[in-house]
């Protein structure tokens, strides 16, 4: 178990490495006062140079830029650009359903979701954002240590069959990412999105599915069981169910997309058979997008 957060983190780091640091846009100025890396196009607290202005009477002498002032008779003070940081909160479904993989050596949905979550977290942290988990376990913070902490928390498994998004403890006006297969109760998702919308939180829903769940390649007499075995369904001709199953899945995805649209979120379906980088790129674009 001690190995797991490490390997999870290194996988995520490897995935995050090729992308430029992601700068989520800060929408609301007044709500956050913590200085981050987003230029506000005006003078204020920050690290990067903004302008030289003639020194005023209220400027302390130690603020005078002597190199600039030596070029002329007047004295100048260097203004910095005012920068703020954005908070991003992540929820990853850690339920038993996510541990499914259709092939013996394949990637489970949980693995993929965790790597994606952590990768996007590392990118954001590198960009100077604050990243945390929804709920009260890990409030958004900056710094590398946060990624390690996140990896540790994400590698835990929950015993439930299906997970429901945790929408507690979300900072107002922040951003959020929900990663799950969304095969459980959709009302929980709807409620979570509602709470997020209340607090003006925008974000992205990523549905991680196994290719088998999208293709339903089963036939013959079959007893389907959920991962914990709590839910069972027996059929004599699994092949006959395929069309109806796929209809239901499409219906679900349509509903999720609708929910996301209504609450100003983005929705995306990702398959574990595909490249994780594609999903990360989508997430990058989704968080960058103006809501």
């Amino acid at each position, binding site marked *: 178990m001690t190995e797991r957060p490490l390997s999870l983190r290194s996988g995520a780091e490897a995935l995050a490495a090729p992308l430029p640091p992601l700068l989520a846009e800060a929408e609301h100025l007044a709500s956050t006062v913590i200085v981050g890396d987003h230029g506000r196009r005006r003078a204020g607290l920050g690290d990067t140079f903004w302008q030289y202005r003639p020194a005023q009477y209220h400027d302390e002498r130690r603020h005078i830029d002597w190199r600039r002032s030596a070029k002329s008779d007047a004295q100048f003070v260097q203004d910095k650009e005012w920068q703020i940081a954005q908070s991003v909160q992540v929820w990853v479904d850690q339920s038993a359903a996510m541990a499914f993989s259709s092939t013996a050596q394949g990637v489970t949905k949980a693995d993929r979701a965790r790597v994606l979550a952590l990768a996007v977290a590392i990118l954001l942290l590198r960009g100077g954002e604050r990243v945390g988990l929804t709920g009260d376990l890990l409030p958004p913070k900056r710094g590398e240590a946060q990624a390690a902490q996140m990896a540790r928390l994400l590698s835990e498994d929950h015993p439930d069959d299906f997970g429901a998004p945790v929408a507690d403890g979300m900072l107002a006006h922040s951003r959020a990412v929900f990663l799950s297969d969304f095969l459980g109760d959709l009302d929980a998702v709807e409620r979570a999105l509602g709470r997020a919308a209340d607090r003006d939180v925008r974000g992205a829903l990523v549905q991680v599915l196994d290719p088998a769940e999208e293709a339903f390649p089963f036939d013959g*007499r079959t007893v*389907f069981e959920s991962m914990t075995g709590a839910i069972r369904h027996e059929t004599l001709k699994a092949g006959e169910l395929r069309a109806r199953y796929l209809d239901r899945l499409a219906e679900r995805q349509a509903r999720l997309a609708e929910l996301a649209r209504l609450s100003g979120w983005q929705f995306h379906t990702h398959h574990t058979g595909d490249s994780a980088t594609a999903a990360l790129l989508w997430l990058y674009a989704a968080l960058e997008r103006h809501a």
Partner: protein
Amino acid sequence: MWTLGPIAFAAPWLLLGLVALPILWLLLRAVPPAPIRRRFPGVALLLGLTDDESQTDRTPWWLLLLRMLAVAAVILGFAGPVLNPQEERPGGGPLLVLVDGTWADARDWPRRLDRIEAALRDAASDGRRAALVRLTDLPAEGPVFRDAQAVAQEAAGMVPAPHGPDPEGLSDWADSLSGDFDTFWLSDGVARDSRADLLAALEERGTVRVFESPRPVYGLTPPRFEDGTITLDALRARTGGAAEVRVNAMGPDPAGVERRLASESLAFIAGEGRATLELSLPPELRNRITRFEIQGVSSAGAVALTDDALKRREVALISGGNDREELELLDPLHYLRQALAPSAELIEGTLADVLLANPDVIILADVATLSSLEAEDLQAWVEDGGLLVRFAGPRLAASDVSRQSLDPLMPVRLRAGGRSIGGAMSWGEPKALAPFAADSPFYGLTIPDDVSVNAQVMAQPDPTLAARVIAQLADGTPLVTRKDSGQGNIVLFHVTANAEWSTLPLSGLFVQMLERLAVSTRPAVPDLEALEGTSWMPEDVLDAFGVLEDAGALPGVDGDRLADLTPGAEMPPGLYAGEERRIAVNVFTADSTLQPTAWPDRIPVEGLEVTRETPLKGWLIGGALMLLMLDILAALALSGRLRGPRAGVAAAMLGLVLAGLPTPPQAQEDDADPPVSEDFAVAATSDVVLAYVETGVPRVDEMSEAGLYGLSNTLFQRTSIEPAMPMGVDPETDELAFFPFLYWPVTAEQDLPSRAAYAKLNRYLRTGGMILFDTRDADLARFGSSSPEGKRLQAIARGLDIPPLEPIPQDHVLTRTFYLLQDFPGRHATRDVWVEAAPPDAQAAEGMPFRDLNDGVTPVVIGGNDWAAAWATDEDGNPLVPIGRGMAGERQREIALRFGVNLVMHVLTGNYKSDQVHVPALLDRLGQ
């Protein structure tokens, strides 16, 4: 045994199991295929979905039928069904089991043993006593009847003999029979005169039953060699219907492994007992054949051993250079060809090619020097048992071969120059031959009076000379000398092979001498009278199954016994070696025939029309297994496991089922040497291409390429030669034959070519290619120079077949093939450039400025003037390397280019310009 029509069952009570089948039907019907459990998170979406149609939970009828069939097949199989069961024949009194035990039995000997054992077992179960007698190995007295069980144990160890029964011994034995007994005779199906008497004798004693195999008996007569083809007949005893047999010629391949060397199918016409095969094989292959055999028939009669009669010696003829346009009668090989063509296979070609064919004899007519590699190979061949015959001639006399020390490929040392006797400028008369000494291989040959010798090379007297002389002239000078070398011999005729130096090649003695030297083959007619009083040792003998075995310590055979060539107990078929030759004894002689047995009607013959007993158990069980495999597949398909995530298992099962099916034959990948790249060949041959040898030093290679590019451009502009872009070649890997001309810059670090590359280069030089060696140091020409490149060139050239060289003479054709030149500068301007030396006897024609020189192109030009640098231009035609100073330098570059033009012209047109010298004489002769 319970019989039902043509089928009998060994364990009929097992058939009761079939009654259980309907019960099984009900049982199987009730049990549907078990469901698969699958973990699937999407189950949440499935809840509430019901199956559309009410699927039966029972096994489908066709699957049931499949299973029932499988079970029925198993039950039937274990009940031991037999098709066409043999019924037993009761009898009483002692039983004599008589076996022919000849080669004809060998083909199905195990079946015969089974039949014998069955007969003896039946006798034992009936309480009869029995005796077992093999006609090819008769007991001293009549049959001794013993307990049949004991006799059956003896029978297992019995083997057939590779010959027929001895008729005399057989009639004696028939006379000695006494008492009453029944006889069961296992006949081999071949008619023999002795059968009738024996049958009569046996019938006096009791009833006779005959067993005869329905399988046809085949035989092969010994091969004969007629008019270049091998003829042999296949025989068969039973002549009904057409048939086809395949005859294989077996023998060792070059590696000594026995292989099928040729294979021909032979069709018997219906009603004919004899089919003739004519095989025309290359001599190399023919000499290797040790035996012919009919494929798939393991019997001594179906094997025909070959002996010396089929072999003809292979003689390779090589003469020293063919650069002289001579009349055919002056060709050094003409008389050898005439003498050897009727009795030997002649091979002509280069020494390297000839050695590959591993001939028996190599004749070198006036070949003086060999490259070191060739000499090495040739010596290895001689020591391996080859016979090297050399003839003297002007070249050998003029060369230094075997002068200072004994050349390993010469029998004696030679004195310089040789001698000429009886000519216009010498005293004495042409010498005749002295009678041959008793220890000479020529001893006993009569010497015609008109054989005389005008000129010869002289052996250097030394202590070993006397022992090596095998023919000498009347004055005691050696004419033919011989030396042993390893297992082979080296023989030197001190005269030419044509009539230039002596009249020996014109006489019949020449042919006889060659014959005595075992150069040509002796007439292969078996001289039976000469066999009397000789003794022959078996080398290899055939057993009845046609397998050749070492004779071991078998006693020898007298010549007169061998003369009739019919094998017997004391002379099994095989190869018999006498003093000088080997004779094959085969089961058949050339004119023997095979006749089927003709039994009188009163004798019951079993085995001919009786259909064979066929146990069906294996088929049924196999079929049941097959059905069960299908059942697995069907069950998988029904339960949905044939598709989906775990289909691999099903695919493996399917593979298992299909494994029994024959796979289509696949074309064998040709693993031969990688052929020359087609692109390379096309690029090199679609135009004239000048090529350079890649040295591996990038600067040198670039300069060579630029130089040849410049030269190609010059040729294009000034002459009708329009070369394509120059190419770099690596003699190790690339085919050289495409290029008329190779430029070879020598660097000090160059690797020596490998053996294969040397062979390639030598072939290139001999077939008219030219290499321009350039040491690029302006230094080589000074004798004994020791520049690193010069040394390297010497090392490289050591393995090449380079003729004697001389600096380009004033009248060499290179000086006038296109431009008139006397200097051959490159970047350097040393004078000395070396080409093949003109023959010493070249003379200037009357009134002509040039000598009448040889045909042909000099294979090498060697110099150190760094021509490539002088020729080199960039793509725009600007010179790359400064030459000399000012206008003088430009002049030197121009002359260098002209030399290049002359050189390529020389390569491509040969001595065309030299021939022009003869134009006035030709016109004169034409009367114009």
